[in-house]
């Protein structure tokens, strides 16, 4: 759904999309194989602008809190009280006002609301896999009260943001407004020719896990190269490195690192995608539900560090059914987790009952409305925007 007024000074569009899928993980925990079905990533994305784009609004509603309360089986995933299941996101995924302008040949923008801090790479929701990578909490900072200022001159983009450090407590729980401004980030981007983009970013995040503060702080770095082209056999690729230092004051307690490479290619009539990831994950004491950890960690909550090496392959096709976009897909992921510290209170092979884990997923992405651009950048900080629609809905398939 989209519209544009006759003076071409206002526009609006809405897209609705979701993924219906079935996943089988072997073993999921304790030697047990689990097969589950989900309605994942049910979102409504609305974008609108007036005054020729000088003022725009971004709204993304995510209804996973209603459909994914138990979490989505994803070996290696962690965060916000979930482990080996991806957590549901908050209902208000993004809600920002963006003011953009230009002075001479320099573009500037200021975005404020709830959304992504200027750090790292794009939301995995807008990338070519239904399953999230394990590095989600290393490579993105999202669902915060945030103000992002951006300056663009030629191919260079600089961003700075301030935000609240606390991670969401649940889908319907807003950030702690009193903590706004306790965290900040910087990101520099080069929008190179031929759809190539390079970014480097740094973030200082105060006590993300202990929402009342006084927990471990994080210092985060990210560097990535991204390819996004409107044509050609390989139309999308991403190589990223991310690291997070967990700090007690100025004392480094743990360093978590990630390397990820992914790409998708059109091999008519299908689209193929491949991802490799090597990410270290903090392990915390599990609750009665072995896929959950405490949101109020006390003492020293990290009981181990696990390196997850995962290869994920996906195949999809593209169809139209009336006004609906349909992308049937299948994904297979193979993971090998190993403890990086010894002795460790968490030994993956003992915990899972196997040295490696498989996940097989099949389903269909369904979308209605024009595809939107990438998620996680605002205003003039969106490089290569004209081709961004390619990756915006995951698989290209077009």
């Amino acid at each position: 759904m989209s519209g544009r007024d006759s003076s071409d000074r206002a526009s609006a569009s809405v897209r609705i999309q979701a993924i219906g899928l079935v996943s089988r993980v072997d073993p999921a925990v304790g030697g047990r194989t689990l097969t589950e079905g989900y309605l994942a990533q049910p979102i409504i994305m609305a974008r609108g602008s007036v005054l020729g784009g000088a003022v725009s609004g971004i709204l993304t509603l995510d209804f996973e809190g209603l459909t994914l309360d138990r979490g989505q089986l994803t070996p290696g995933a962690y965060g916000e009280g979930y482990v080996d299941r991806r957590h549901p996101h908050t209902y208000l995924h993004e809600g920002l006002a963006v003011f953009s302008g230009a002075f001479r040949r320099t573009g500037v923008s200021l975005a404020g609301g709830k959304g992504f801090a200027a750090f790292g790479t794009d939301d995995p929701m807008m990338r070519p896999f239904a399953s999230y990578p394990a590095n989600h909490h290393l490579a993105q900072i999202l669902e915060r009260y945030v103000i992002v200022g951006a300056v663009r001159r030629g191919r260079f983009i600089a961003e700075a943001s301030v935000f609240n450090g606390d991670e969401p407590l649940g889908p319907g729980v807003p950030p702690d407004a009193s903590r706004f401004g306790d965290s900040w980030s910087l990101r520099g981007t080069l929008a190179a020719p031929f759809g190539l983009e390079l970014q480097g970013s740094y973030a200082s995040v105060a006590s993300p896990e202990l929402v009342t503060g006084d927990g471990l702080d994080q210092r985060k770095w990210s560097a990535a190269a991204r390819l996004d082209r409107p044509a050609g056999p390989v139309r999308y690729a991403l190589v990223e490195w991310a690291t997070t230092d967990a700090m007690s004051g100025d004392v480094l307690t743990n360093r978590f690192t990630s390397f990820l490479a992914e790409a998708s290619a059109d091999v008519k009539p299908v689209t193929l995608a491949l991802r490799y990831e090597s990410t270290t994950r903090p392990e915390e004491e599990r609750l009665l539900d072995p896929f959950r950890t405490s949101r109020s960690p006390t003492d020293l909550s990290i009981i181990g560090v696990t390196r997850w090496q995962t290869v994920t392959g996906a195949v999809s096709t593209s169809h139209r059914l009336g006004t609906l976009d349909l992308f049937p897909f299948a994904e297979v992921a193979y993971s090998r987790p190993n403890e990086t510290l010894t002795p460790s209170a968490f030994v993956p092979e003992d915990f899972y009952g196997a040295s490696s884990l498989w996940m097989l997923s099949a389903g269909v992405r369904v979308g209605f409305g024009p595809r939107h651009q990438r998620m996680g950048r605002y205003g003039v900080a969106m490089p290569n925007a004209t081709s961004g629609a390619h990756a915006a809905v995951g698989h290209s398939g077009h």
Partner: protein
Amino acid sequence: MPRGGFTFSSLISMHRFVRFARFARLSRSARRACRTSFAGLALTSVVLSGCGSDSATGLRPFTGPALSVVGKGSMTARYMAEVWTRGNIAYTSTWGTRSANGVLAVGNAVHIWRINGAAPVLADSLIVENATTLGDIQVSDDGTLLVVATERQNGSIVIYGLTDPLKPTRITRYQTANTTNGVHTAEVARVNGTLYAFLSVDPPNARLVIVDLTDPANPREVLTRIMGSPFIHDVYVRDGLLFTALWNDGTTIWDIGGGGKGGSPSNPVQIGNVRTAAWSASAGGIFAHNVRWFQDATGGANAKRFMFVGEEAPGAGSVLNSSNGDIHVVDIADMAAPKEVAFYHVDGAGTHNFSVDEQRGILYAAYYNAGVRAIDIRGDLSSCSADQKSADGRCDLRKMGRQLAGGLQSNGDVFVWGVHFDGNYLYASDMYQGLWKLAAADR
């Protein structure tokens, strides 16, 4: 779907991986992980990500008199936690989830040990349903009750009768909206003749809950008060005074019936607070974890002068792998203005729970990866020579020659959670291996 059916063919030779891992000072398992990496992609990722973080803790070999091992009761099915003894029986709690070959054993067990022989012998065990961690355990001063804390979900205390100390019988499980976040520690103490349980409850809104155990079948809450930053961790109660370890808010002394300020368990009145130093100036907190008021049985001017605060700071690694934090000695001669005067530090390790031999003036401290340490705490701990002081003027107990002995550090992988001195022997609860029985330290 097959398990482990994926064949790896490393594009580089194995020894290069190992050399790289050694260069990076990686752990044994990290090197294994490197060897099983995904071919060329793995090499790239290893180079870029360093293949894991280093776990070097800086713990040095202990040199000095050793606390000799009398025996060990092995427990490797679950991770051990706290220990308490009474007579010939020891009770230990369990923590977290331990797994082997895909079989998960959560910390929902209380183990009951006979300790009259050289080695503790497991006699029986109790399982607390709907629990994953039993962090704290204690027998009441009259020996009639065993109180066990349950943490994380379904926070509560479980109260057992000890008519037969080897066969505790459950009286009740006390769980309310004020405890359900998780009871991290539970101290059982008597105030003016009445038995209470003092519960340190996890965040959010971490709080102290005090429960009257006069009728153990019907515990009665007399106080709930939010305190601590970010939480209250532990308390100590003696002579009508309450000492609360409040993490980054330091340690507070309260009158609850013996301090002359009109306080009571239902209305604690603050007397004083002290923020002890951190083990490192850049540690980012002071981590007041546990507290003990020493009363020297031999009397003297310093008999009731010193309070000991344990600091539990994050180590460079994870729980069961590393630790940090000192023992802080606080002069409480003026309880309204407590002042830290001394400390004890171990490089590469941090302290945990204490037990004190008040007859001989020895503090035993669980020291996680450093095992156990015994420290002479008799006399004036605030007086030392200039070369025995740290830069900030506190006395260093080690430089004062007050370190009497150490134990268990060289007994394989140890991570000692708690110690309990029963008048003759020291019992140490080692999360990895089980219950150790050690000879007392020589003075």
